[in-house]
């Protein structure tokens, strides 16, 4: 598993130096930026990680950055820090899905705990996504007929019923069914159902969004 990176963004030098050292000594790989603009200019982050972000910064603020990142493919978990201590801001940040909201001076233990939580969350999300992508590929390998058969199986229809619906012979259905199981790597219908769910398909086999599972997408609305 690739190492996670903590991205630290704060416009104050003392804050950057102190927190970067703490995070580094705790064993994480950390990269610090003086502004959101610099972070965005450095290109999309590669690999797992999380953001430690000052809420209010000149130019692009922390919350603005959160909004911008939310539209992207793989938004990283965010931990907010602030020197202002205002509550409405913290509520808003947490509702937009932040992992935590910490006032300055930032308590090291709380920060490291939040980072741990964030990185774990990011790892889990990535894993699920990888699995879903893998599954998606597998499903793509099914032929049209095989897919139709599969949908029938997921609906709970008997082979006879499927044969009737599709206008093919029952033995043919059985063959297709076998191939579906093989290609997808499952041995029972129950496993097939679970697999379909994981791939984001509905109970009757309709496709979900390619490559996405419900919990890797951020909730809509900031």
């Amino acid at each position, binding site marked *: 598993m690739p190492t996670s990176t903590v991205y630290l963004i704060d416009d104050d*030098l003392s804050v950057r130096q102190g*927190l970067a050292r703490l995070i580094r000594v705790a064993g994480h790989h950390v990269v610090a930026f003086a502004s959101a603009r610099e972070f965005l200019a450095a290109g999309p982050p590669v690999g797992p990680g999380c953001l430690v972000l000052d809420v209010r910064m000149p130019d692009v603020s922390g919350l603005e950055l959160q909004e911008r990142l939310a539209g992207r493919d793989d938004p990283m978990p965010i931990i907010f820090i602030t020197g202002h201590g205002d509550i409405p801001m913290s509520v808003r940040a947490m509702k937009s899905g932040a992992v935590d909201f910490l006032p300055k001076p930032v308590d090291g233990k709380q920060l490291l705990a939040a980072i741990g939580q964030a990185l774990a969350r990011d790892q889990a999300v990535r894993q699920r996504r990888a699995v879903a992508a893998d599954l998606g590929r597998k499903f793509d390998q099914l032929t049209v007929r095989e897919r139709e058969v599969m949908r029938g199986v997921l609906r709970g229809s008997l082979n006879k019923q499927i044969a009737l619906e599709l206008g093919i012979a029952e033995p043919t259905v059985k063959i297709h069914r076998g191939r579906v199981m093989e290609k997808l790597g499952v041995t029972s219908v129950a496993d097939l159902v679970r697999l379909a769910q994981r791939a984001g398909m509905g109970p009757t086999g309709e496709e979900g969004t390619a490559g996405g599972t419900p919990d890797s997408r951020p909730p809509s609305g900031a």
Partner: protein
Amino acid sequence: MVASACLTLAGIHALVWWRERQALGNLWFSMAALGTAGMGACEYAMMRSSSPAEFGVALQWLHVPAWVIVVSLVGFVRVFLRAGRPSLAWAVCGVRTLSLGLDLIQSPNLNYRVITGLRQVGFLGDTVSIAEGVSNPWMLVGQLSLMLLVVFAVDAMVTTWRRGERQRALVVGGSIVLFVTAGSGQSVLVLWRLVDMPLTPSLFFLGILVVMGFELSRDVLNAGRLARELAHQRSELARVHRASTLGELAASLAHELNQPLTGILGNAQAGELLLARPSPDTAELRAVLSAVIADTRRASDIIRQMRDFLCKRDAPRRAIELNALIAQVLRLVRSEAVLRDLVIVAEPAPGLPMVRGDSVQLQQVFLNLIVNAQQAMAGMPPGARRLVIRTATRDDGRIVVELEDTGPGFDAASLDRVFEAFFTTRPDGMGMGLAICRSIIESHDGLIRVGNRAEGGARVTIVLPPAAGVRSKTGADARPGEVTLPGTTPL
């Protein structure tokens, strides 16, 4: 002796009046003193006279300075106490003029019908002449004028007392009443041959002069004390104003301190983790401690800056680089500006001449104007809050600082009242900000103007004279064009 004292007093007060024509009190005083000197001279002539004729003439001439004194006393009371009925004043002067006239047309004089002879008596260790003769009933006219003077003085005294200036009323009024009555009494006693002594009205008038002179100098002493009190109160007011501005900066201070504190805490906790390792990295630990020390110094600098700003101690006047001073103020308000979504743009002019002044006071002016702009724009939508601070040199060499914002601007109806003390359009405002700003700018020989921009928003213009004989040190490295604050890099 009397004469020389009087002449000295006269001279001094005439000089005071000359310096300040408004001080008519001093003019009247010096005339009264001159009169008394003249009177002393006549008395001396009387005392040294060797014949009745001489005595008579001397006494006759004595009435001239007497007239001068009476009129001057009336004038002094009117001007200095600002009291005393005009009708009485005219009455006194009229009767005295009448008595002078009578004195001059009669022979030998107003006081004596005829002087029969001279007698030598002892007076203050010396032998002097006094007259023997028949007293003149017309001298009552003279006495009448003195009585009227006393009445006038009492009237003025009462008015002044009622006004609250009790000490002055008592001293000036009382001395006139006392000495004039005593002097009159002496004349009557001498002229009616009830006592054997020379006429010395000048001594009594000298008494009045001494008292009045004392009152006049009390004014001067008071003026000095009042000026000091005024300066002290101004300084107090400025301090209170700074304190209330600090209330608005409290959030800024807290935020500013939290930054180095975060650095300190982070470093220290990193240090703890390092020490928990089996073989701690001492180089890294050293770095931790240096960072902690540096951040602590930074925190104390922030506190010191705030305290300096609040402290009553006004810095002495020296040459100031305005662009740097404005930049310093902007650093103070930066976090607060970010909090309120306000963009402040500084446009410092390169090669700006220096200004001679008090840096603490000038910082206060700019701080106040920025805070005003902030509050004015509080109702604007975010993204529409912008303040531009521009410096430039005018053709006449003077330095201009302009602050333009994108707020609602000044209310045109009350535009001419904005500098008034206690005038404010804010429910929570004290109304002292602009009044104090103007006071400070004017004490720097500058001027401050407010108006509205054509595009909307307010404009405050400050003009200051350049410091004489000082060349700007930053002409070469001041950056032309815009420097955007808040932000660490120009856009």
